[in-house]
């Protein structure tokens, strides 16, 4: 938990205050970065970049939103910049948002509750374009508008990706016939 006092100390330039912020949050930042880029080394680079952005942006952070929400957005932004630089976002650009939905086959209903490890593997198996929307919405609770701002796409396009990501993830977890469909 990052307190307002600690943030004020960071803004005053108190030695050790920003280090305390990093020590408190680095596991969460690394995890979010890894969930978005899907590679451990790249997640380190994204976390490093995110903390530089936090460091530079702290003087402008006035606490209108929770610090953690602000941090989620900064990590998301750093991850998207990273993916664009690596040109791994090519698939996003070619994703056809207007493609009509087909009728999915029903999920198998004889499965037990969602297994956490299977869920992680399912997430890792999603294309980055779908995974980023799903992770930011369903894991980190950003709004579709906020996600659109971070990904550089419209709110409607975010909803389309979210819909497809949920269907595909559910299919991979609950064994639907059309698990390969995007």
């Amino acid at each position, binding site marked *: 938990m990052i307190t307002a006092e600690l943030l004020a100390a960071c803004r005053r330039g108190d030695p050790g205050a920003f280090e305390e912020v990093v020590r408190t949050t*680095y596991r969460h930042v690394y995890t979010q970065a890894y969930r978005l880029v899907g590679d451990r080394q790249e997640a380190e680079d994204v976390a490093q970049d995110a903390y530089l952005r936090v460091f530079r942006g702290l003087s402008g952070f006035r606490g209108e939103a929770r610090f953690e929400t602000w941090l989620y957005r900064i990590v998301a932004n750093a991850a998207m910049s990273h993916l664009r630089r690596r040109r791994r976002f090519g698939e996003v650009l070619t994703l056809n948002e207007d493609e009509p939905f087909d009728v999915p086959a029903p999920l198998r209903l004889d499965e037990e509750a969602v297994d956490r490890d299977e869920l992680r593997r399912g997430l890792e198996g999603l294309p980055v374009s779908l995974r980023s929307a799903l992770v930011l919405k369903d894991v980190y609770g950003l709004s579709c508008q906020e996600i659109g701002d971070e990904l550089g796409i419209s709110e409607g396009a975010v909803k389309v990706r979210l819909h497809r990501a949920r269907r595909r993830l559910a299919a991979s977890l609950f064994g639907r016939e059309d698990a390969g469909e995007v």
Partner: protein
Amino acid sequence: MKCEEVRPLLPEMADVWLRSAGPAEEHLAGCAMCSAELGRYRALIHELSALRDSVDEPPEGFLARLLAQLPEPERPGLLRRVGADERLQYAALSLGGVVVGAAAIGLLWWRSARKTLDQPPATRAAI
């Protein structure tokens, strides 16, 4: 509505808990299969939100590498420090008040002294 029409709507319906009853909800009320599938999506979204509080352990040495590359904190200038600290703002206002007050008293004293010096010596002696 038929199952084939309702199923494509379920991923989006899963995170909307309060919505007015419509044809899809009417179908869900009478269809165990679609209703159970909606439950699956809701379980999935619930598990995804629970991931927020779970963390993957970063590689060894990650924190040390991170800290080593952080820039040195800069002490902000006096004006920015005053702007960021309410106690400093009160202190600055008090100090400013004292300075203005002292300047006013000094000015009055100087004008009074000057007036006295401008008088002819005889008048000055009488004063």
